[in-house]
């Protein structure tokens, strides 16, 4: 078991395994998205309250799920990087931060596009989830900024890992404080509507899209780590051989 772990954590072996898996994962992700989009946009019935506009949840909710999940993965990779000095984990911290920031931005963007027709405003201060997403985006930007400030990318990754771990402790507290603040300042103007996707014909495509987002994240993370390895190990014999094809 331990032997296999160390083999996988060696950049050269990781490169070979990632290269073997990536074509299959890419095809699977593309097919999955085709099915998910058809399911969510065509097959699923319109919502009785929100009509067709609710279909935004099939991209909004998975983006929000992933924005949190990726942060957890990043903190996990950070812990591995700090404790065992694994180079792959250091690379993963940075690539997770990039992807997580994008998922968070998507959750915010699609949330605004959903809020405008439903609340009549792009930004609703009374919505704790949107506020938490915005703070999460700032946390990601902090990790990216800290990483990029160091000329030595290995040191940058390890410093960023400490911040990511501090962030993972804070995320539940931030979320709770925002909710607490929200109940305190809740005006009567906030229009609450029933959560959509309560019916299973709407819920299944949502869960499917969520799974596809996770598949997408795994695939792209693998591809991104693979390129970084090839860049950072450019001087090694094996990388030279790979590049010559």
């Amino acid at each position, binding site marked *: 078991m331990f032997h296999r772990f160390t083999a996988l954590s060696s950049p050269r072996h990781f490169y070979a395994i990632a290269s073997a898996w990536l074509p299959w994962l890419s095809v699977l992700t593309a097919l999955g998205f085709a099915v998910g989009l058809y399911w969510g946009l065509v097959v699923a019935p319109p919502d009785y309250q929100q009509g067709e506009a609710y279909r935004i949840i099939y991209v909004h909710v998975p983006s929000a799920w992933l924005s949190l999940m990726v942060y957890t993965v990043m903190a996990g990779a950070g812990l591995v990087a700090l404790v065992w000095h694994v180079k792959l984990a250091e690379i993963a911290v940075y690539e997770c931060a990039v992807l997580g920031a994008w998922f968070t931005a998507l959750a915010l963007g699609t949330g605004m596009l959903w809020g405008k027709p439903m609340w009549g405003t792009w930004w609703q201060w009374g919505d704790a989830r949107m506020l938490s997403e915005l*703070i999460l985006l700032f946390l990601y930007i902090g990790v990216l*900024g*800290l990483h990029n*400030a160091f000329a030595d990318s290995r040191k940058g990754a390890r*410093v960023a890992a400490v*911040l990511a771990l*501090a962030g993972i*402790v804070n995320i539940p507290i931030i979320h709770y*404080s925002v909710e607490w603040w929200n109940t305190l300042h809740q005006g009567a103007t906030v229009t609450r509507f029933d959560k959509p996707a309560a019916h299973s014909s709407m819920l299944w495509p949502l869960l499917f899209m969520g799974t596809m987002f996770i598949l997408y994240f795994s695939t792209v993370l693998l591809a991104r780590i693979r390129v970084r390895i090839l860049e950072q190990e450019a001087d090694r014999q094996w990388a030279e051989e790979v590049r010559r094809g």
Partner: protein
Amino acid sequence: MMGRAFAAVFRRELRLAWRRRGQLLQPLVFYALVMLLFPLGAGADLALLGQVAPSLLWVAALLAVLLAQGTLFSADLEEGGIELWVTSGVSLGWLALAKLIAHAMIVSLPLILVGPVLAGWLGLRGEALWVLAVSMALGMPVLCWIGALGAALTLGLPRGGILLALIVLPLYIPVLMFGAGAVHAAVDGRPADGALLLLAGLLFLGVSLAPIATAAALRVSQE
């Protein structure tokens, strides 16, 4: 051994702070200045000021704490003090705890004393002043410790100042919400103890986790 190391670090911090006591007044002047700027910008409407004063007092105090963080470890870095800490054999988290407690006292105490005075200046009265003082006493140390972690993370970077603010400010949000929330509650005549208890919880969490995180950051910076 551990007790003596703790006391030594603690005393050294206080001695150094006393030596540059003029510098310690700067956050206070900054705090008072910001509290002057807001009424000048918003007009002398006391009713409006009373409504926003709790948030203003807390945001300005938060920024004053943030300003006091940048150079926290830079003297240690130049003198090789951190390297000494790492190689001393005493737990780095333990030494960081001594430094963090001293640092929190030095930075927070003056602000906690001045906060209620400025609050009275802005028109807050009675119980709200006490609640402000207690909320600051509970919250300012946490802000100091989060800031110290930021200072440890950006240690040795040429332009760490703006980056420090960028990574620290999002982490400040819960303290700000509970702190300003407590004072708001007192101003509105609602009980503030819920928010104060939450702040006390953060203080407890801070004193147990901040030394570990700061020690980890310092160790990485010395690699």
